[in-house]
């Protein structure tokens, strides 16, 4: 078990290394650097000035040197101030070093956000916290509802309840966030006026009024999928021998479902719920942009839209980490929950 986890962690590190390098390469394509230089200098700068800005800020160093600097295995060089000729900070707004130092991800320095004019850490972690709150409420709504729907539908396969709930869950998987978000806003904010169509004020304080719509929108897309998986698992469990034995023993249907079937039927949905996180990530971006909630997704879109290299790298590192760690947890957790499965 331990060696399995260690091997998986090794693969994970390799994957993250490869992925960040790909992201690094794609962000540093020539058109993207041009765009960054244009946005960072004043209007109507000539091509030479743009080029000199890029050289001055160290964007023209060798690709691998720069990637190494970001990682923290190559020392970051200070830039030379063109006016004085002395070493100067690369970006004055986030305490870049004046002497060559190792300051990369390995040292806990995520770099400097050119869009927000602050260090990446000071933007990224509060945003992650905000998204964490959103995620918590989404899971708190999504998991119980979807499990309940799945169990009720799978309890008696082919019954009318099953048909209705199955079609409802198919409908919910066919409703992406940007569709359900618009429909919910139209119904609850525009027509009924019960809820706020924007969650911008949720950064100051979360209320039922401003937070229900984003949570509902995010939850609805996942509910259908988890419910269908739970239903399939429940249907399978209900055909097992021990369920029939329990029924023939004279136990009531309710007690068979709760005491015998439920525990075994909930193993499969656990994996599905864990693997739902990467999907939620895309949903989070859509919902945060749609409802103007300043979280991780909002930061990612801002970083990508403004070609903010370090911030986007930080965002990709975090999201890739979340995807990989949830995969690991789901594998290990599955082995724990299901004694018949042994990881090699």
């Amino acid at each position: 078990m331990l060696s399995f986890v260690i091997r998986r962690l090794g693969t994970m590190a390799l994957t993250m290394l490869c992925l960040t390098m790909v992201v690094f390469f794609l962000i540093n394509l020539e058109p993207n650097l041009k765009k960054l230089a244009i946005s960072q200098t004043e209007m109507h700068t000539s091509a030479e000035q743009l080029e000199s800005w890029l050289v001055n800020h160290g964007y023209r160093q060798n690709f691998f040197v720069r990637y190494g600097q970001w990682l923290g295995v190559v020392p970051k060089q200070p830039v030379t101030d063109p006016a004085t000729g002395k070493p100067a900070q690369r970006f004055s707004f986030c305490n870049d070093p004046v002497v060559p130092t190792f300051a990369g991800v390995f040292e806990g320095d995520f770099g400097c956000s050119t869009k927000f004019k602050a260090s990446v850490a000071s933007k990224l972690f509060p945003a992650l916290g905000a998204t964490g709150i959103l995620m918590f409420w989404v899971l708190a709504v999504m998991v119980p509802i979807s499990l309940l729907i799945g169990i009720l539908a799978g309890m008696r396969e082919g019954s009318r309840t099953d048909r209705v709930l199955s079609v409802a869950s198919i409908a919910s998987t066919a409703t992406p966030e940007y569709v359900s978000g618009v429909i919910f806003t139209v119904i609850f904010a525009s027509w009924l006026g019960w809820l706020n169509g924007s969650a911008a004020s949720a950064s100051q304080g979360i209320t039922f009024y401003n937070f229900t719509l984003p949570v509902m929108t995010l939850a609805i897309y996942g509910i259908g999928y988890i419910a269908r998986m739970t239903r399939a698992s429940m249907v399978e469990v209900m055909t097992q021998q021990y369920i029939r034995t329990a029924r023939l023993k004279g136990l009531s249907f309710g007690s068979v479902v709760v005491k015998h079937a439920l525990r075994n039927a909930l193993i499969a949905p656990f994996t599905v719920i864990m693997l739902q996180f990467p999907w939620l990530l895309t949903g989070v971006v859509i919902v945060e942009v749609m409802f103007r909630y300043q979280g991780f997704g909002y930061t990612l879109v801002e970083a990508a839209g403004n070609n903010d290299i370090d911030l986007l790298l930080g965002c990709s590192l975090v999201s890739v980490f979340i995807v990989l760690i949830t995969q690991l947890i789901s594998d290990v957790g599955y082995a724990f929950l299901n004694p018949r499965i042994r990881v090699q």
Partner: protein
Amino acid sequence: MPIQYISTFTVVLEVLSRFWPVWIALLIVMGASFAYKKKLALYGQLFDSGVGIVGVGICLFWLFTAIFAATISPFDPLAQVPIMKDVLPGAIEPQSGLTYLFGGDKLARDVFSRMVYGSQIVLIIAPAATGFALMVGITLGLPAGYYGGKIDTVLSFLANLVLAFPVILLFYLLVTPGIMDTPIPYAMAGVFFLFPIIFFSVLFWTRYKNRPDRLYILLGITLIVGGWIYAGLVFDADPLKIVHIDPNQLNIFVAVVFASSPGVFRIVRGLVMDIKTRDYVAAAQTRGESPWYIMLWEILPNARGPLIVDACLRIGYTTILLGTLGYFGLGLAPESPDWGTAIKDASRLLRSFIHPALPPTIALMSFVLGLNLLADSLREQSMKD
């Protein structure tokens, strides 16, 4: 002059009558399928359940809408009639006397016509991209599952690499105006579009290598048609100017294929690993068939059930992805009538006008729902066998 409106009831009637070519086509196709369902194998069995009929009906509805878009829509999807800005549903355009059935958007375009034309974009890109993703996934998944070992390790690692990318980040990196200046999208297109040609060449080669008369004809057709489409799509050098794709559409296409082929790869790999332990595969091995013959002619036909179901779901998922791209304004032109872009434009103005938002959302939802229902009933039917 104030704008004249028609009543809600008339709007409904007019919308229904606008779709007349679709109703006729639906009636013919559904009627024929229903009459001959005994002879239509899996497709015919779909008509045994209500869910299947609804699924097929919705998918066909949007298919015919895309085909007859020019007849159905009363206006040009890009035409702007200034006085019709933000008009409510049912407003009559004074010049032509035609109605803005679902109202006008903020740029005074007809919402109904845009929704109808939007179906064309979705119904061309989503199935085509899914088709290419299937080709890539099958061509790589077969050897990975069949041989195992090093090939499997390398290919699975690459697939997991792509799958670990959050889709939205992938699109923000791959679908940008800047990336069209670099050779990356064309290189990716060059690689991806090669797979169907390889697939069909190997398919015919393994089967007919001892029958040159058949082999040369089939290989010739594959190479000529494949090469023609390849030249048109990748180099935009189709000598007849029929196959053509805009650079930004190529970019979207490539990104979507890239994002969804690892999923197909994983499914194919799993299916192959399961099927290769069967007796008929062992029999073929004993006969001395070549590995690729076994993969393509013994294993693949037996994996078709789950693959068809997955393809249906995947077209729906690709539709959702296209909508996401449109919603974030990535790749597609800002005035493009596709549903995602329309939802983006309308959702910014929900506080003042809601009518431009509803048609594209309901269109997208119903199409994906139709595909999911279809997939669900296909799965149920194939499980019965």
